[in-house]
């Protein structure tokens, strides 16, 4: 039977994530059981639901396993130097205020260790960014060194007898520095994570979303915690949803209880709004407010 005699073909059904990915770069390098891909799923669902013009969405990431997200997303994406995702995104946001959303998608080691200073100052200025911090409690790409988020008691390659350093409580840090939206979800809470990302995409100001993800190859294996799916079962068992919880009380302990939820949702003028308001007050009509044609949306 020749091809022309075939009936008109059936419709092509593609994965809803597929249009957002650079297909030529797949399959990705993340390990089996790694949670980063799941957060990407949630992010693409949030992008679909937000209805944003994808030509005006940019994604920036630093170095690390999570830093590869920018390379896999079929958006305007930038893979920056280690820890400098937020300063790059700040420049992008201010250089082109017409962008609908600038998303920083990076890991805990990139954002809170080498980029920690940038994180606190972007939050202090309330720069209009959405920061997704995928927290896997370790430096995954470089071989499992202790990260600023590694809980006390966890074994890592540079702490073979267990970690004794006090870890960061990232939501508390972001809240204290003035982020307008702070949430924490785990990779088990896919629907809630997608909803948090949707709210973050619609929110003006510094949005900080922590997504806890398993690292089966380094963190789980060193600590004999099983596979990625065993970590998800631990998240399911030990997580407690407390929306609006005091961020001081949401610190993480080794295999202990996890408080998840939307912790902070408040309004503050963003850096650009504050600058325009300040100079308009100062110079009156002589000052032209800075912003693109879509800035008033």
């Amino acid at each position, binding site marked *: 039977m020749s091809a022309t005699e075939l009936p008109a073909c059936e*419709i092509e*059904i593609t994965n*809803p994530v597929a249009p957002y990915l650079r297909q030529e770069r797949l399959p990705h390098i993340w390990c089996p*059981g790694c949670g980063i*891909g*799941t957060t990407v*799923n949630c992010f693409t669902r949030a992008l679909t639901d937000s209805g944003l013009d994808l030509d005006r969405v940019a994604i920036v990431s630093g170095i690390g396993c999570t830093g590869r997200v920018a390379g896999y997303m079929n958006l305007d994406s930038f893979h920056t130097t280690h820890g400098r995702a937020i300063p790059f995104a700040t420049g992008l946001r201010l250089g082109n205020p017409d962008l609908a959303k600038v998303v920083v998608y990076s890991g805990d080691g990139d954002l809170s260790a080498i980029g920690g200073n940038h994180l606190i100052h972007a939050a202090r200025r309330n720069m209009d960014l959405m920061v997704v911090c995928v927290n896997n409690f370790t430096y995954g790409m470089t071989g499992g060194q202790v990260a600023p988020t590694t809980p006390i008691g966890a074994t890592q390659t540079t702490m073979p007898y267990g970690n004794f350093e006090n870890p960061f409580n990232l939501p508390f840090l972001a809240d204290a520095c003035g982020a307008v939206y702070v949430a924490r979800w785990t990779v088990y809470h896919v629907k809630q994570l997608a909803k948090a990302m949707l709210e973050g995409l619609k929110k003006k100001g510094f949005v900080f979303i922590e997504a806890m993800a398993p690292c089966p190859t380094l963190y789980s294996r060193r600590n004999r915690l099983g596979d990625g*799916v065993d970590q998800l079962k631990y998240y399911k068992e030990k997580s407690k949803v407390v929306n609006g919880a005091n961020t001081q009380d949401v610190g993480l302990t080794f295999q202990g209880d996890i408080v998840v939820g939307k912790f902070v949702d408040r309004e503050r003028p963003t850096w650009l709004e504050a600058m325009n308001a300040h100079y308009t007050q100062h110079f009156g009509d002589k000052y032209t407010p800075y912003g693109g044609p879509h800035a008033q949306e």
Partner: protein
Amino acid sequence: MSDAAPVKKGKGTIFLTLEVCKGCSYCIDFCPAHCLEFSREFNRKGYHYPVLASPEDCTGCDLCGLYCPDFAIFGMRFKDIEQRRQAAAVEPLVPARG
């Protein structure tokens, strides 16, 4: 058996890109209808991939698609597939089951 139960028909199905699956079992463990299980066969990279063991239970909710870290699997409701087919104005290759 004299009074055979009516055959239960699923509301949806899954689609799988077999070769990108890494066998993490997220979809199998967290399927709300428990309708997936590991295959006996391997894919080209040597992983067991999920198969739809009980298609009559699948609702096409796409939670597997939301969990899948490798973008390999997704679910879809028959209703939505039919809607797309009508929107594309294409004759179905296989007549819909009654």
